[in-house]
């Protein structure tokens, strides 16, 4: 059983590595973009194989979907072929190798993959899957007097510095256990959108600080002109 999963994992990871090398090697940026999308799809399969469905979902939708489209949109503006560079950049290779070695060294301390005694399987998560965290009889009727803080006698509720009562453990973690984290992630996305608007939103010519373009200097192959004329 384990060997089958391992075989599939090794096969997929070889494909992932091959795709990553191909992304770097290919000269045509269009091919590189599509290969990056393939890379993300392969990674999504790897995550599914690890039963990390939410990560797989994110990888497939963001990595293979949105970023491919955004890269293609950037390609339209910047041309299709990469400039020739020197084949190996030695300082860069050195930094990459060192960083990779450090990361691999860091994984040596982690529990083995699938180890049933790993902290992730023994600490908190079983209670979250059973959904009995915070459902202790003293915690059930939460009133103004029975908040999360220690009560007058100085006792805390049993391990309920957060409560999670939705079946998807990942949502529980993201929305309740790490609620602040997710809130500011949302804020980061919001700020990204606002900065796009501030930097790239088209302003009407003739507004304050926007010069009026000379009609004789306009390019004839302008798509927007063709659309507005039709």
């Amino acid at each position, binding site marked *: 059983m384990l060997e089958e999963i391992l075989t599939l994992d090794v096969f997929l990871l070889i494909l992932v590595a091959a795709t990553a090398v191909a992304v770097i090697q290919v000269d045509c940026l269009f091919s590189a973009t599509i290969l990056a999308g393939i890379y993300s799809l392969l990674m999504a399969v790897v995550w599914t194989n690890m039963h990390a469905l939410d990560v797989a979902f*994110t990888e497939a939708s963001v990595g293979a979907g949105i970023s491919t489209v955004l890269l293609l949109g950037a390609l339209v503006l910047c041309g299709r072929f990469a400039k020739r560079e020197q084949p190996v950049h030695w300082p860069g290779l050195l930094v990459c190798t060192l960083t990779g070695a450090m990361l691999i060294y860091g994984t040596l301390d982690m529990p083995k993959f699938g180890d049933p005694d790993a902290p992730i399987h023994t600490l908190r998560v079983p209670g979250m899957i059973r959904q009995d965290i915070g459902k202790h009889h003293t915690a059930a009727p939460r009133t*103004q007097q029975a*908040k999360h803080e220690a009560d007058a006698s100085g006792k805390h509720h049993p391990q309920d510095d957060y409560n999670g009562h939705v079946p998807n453990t990942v949502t529980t973690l993201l929305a309740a256990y790490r609620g602040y984290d997710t809130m500011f992630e949302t804020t980061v996305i919001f700020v990204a*959108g606002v900065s796009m608007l501030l930097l*790239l939103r088209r302003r009407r010519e003739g507004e304050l600080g926007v010069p009026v373009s000379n009609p004789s200097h306009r390019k004839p192959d302008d798509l927007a002109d063709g*659309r507005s004329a039709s």
Partner: protein
Amino acid sequence: MTKQTQMSEQTLVRMVAKMTIPFISMLGLYIILHGELGPGGGFQGGVVVAAALILYGLVFGADELRRHIPVALLDACMALGALLYAGTGLASLLAGGNFLDYGMLMPHSAGDGEALGMTLVEYGVGITVSSVMTTIYLMISERRTTLRPGEEGL
């Protein structure tokens, strides 16, 4: 030039887009609405909804997308989602708990309050993510930095 680049004039592309866009957007809404039950959540669902809108924009042109989804609505939704998230936290604060202490939304059955709070929060994330992704696509697909006199749109 215009004839070759306009994807909506290719029958196959147009038909496939028209057939798949309803299903993609329905899947995205499903992922947002069922984020607390199955895999996925606000972020993933929001991205899938945005993918449906972006596909529409790719095939039929960004101007057509702007006609159906007004830019003002996208702008408002970006802020609305983040506001819904923070507002849920504030509501639990006003109900007497801590910030983002969802159980206080329904003090008599904390579990239901947790579920309600997390669901609202996921909706907020979904609204923000879908509108921001669509906005990023719209901004990147612009070819010119200014609007000329007589042109419509933002």
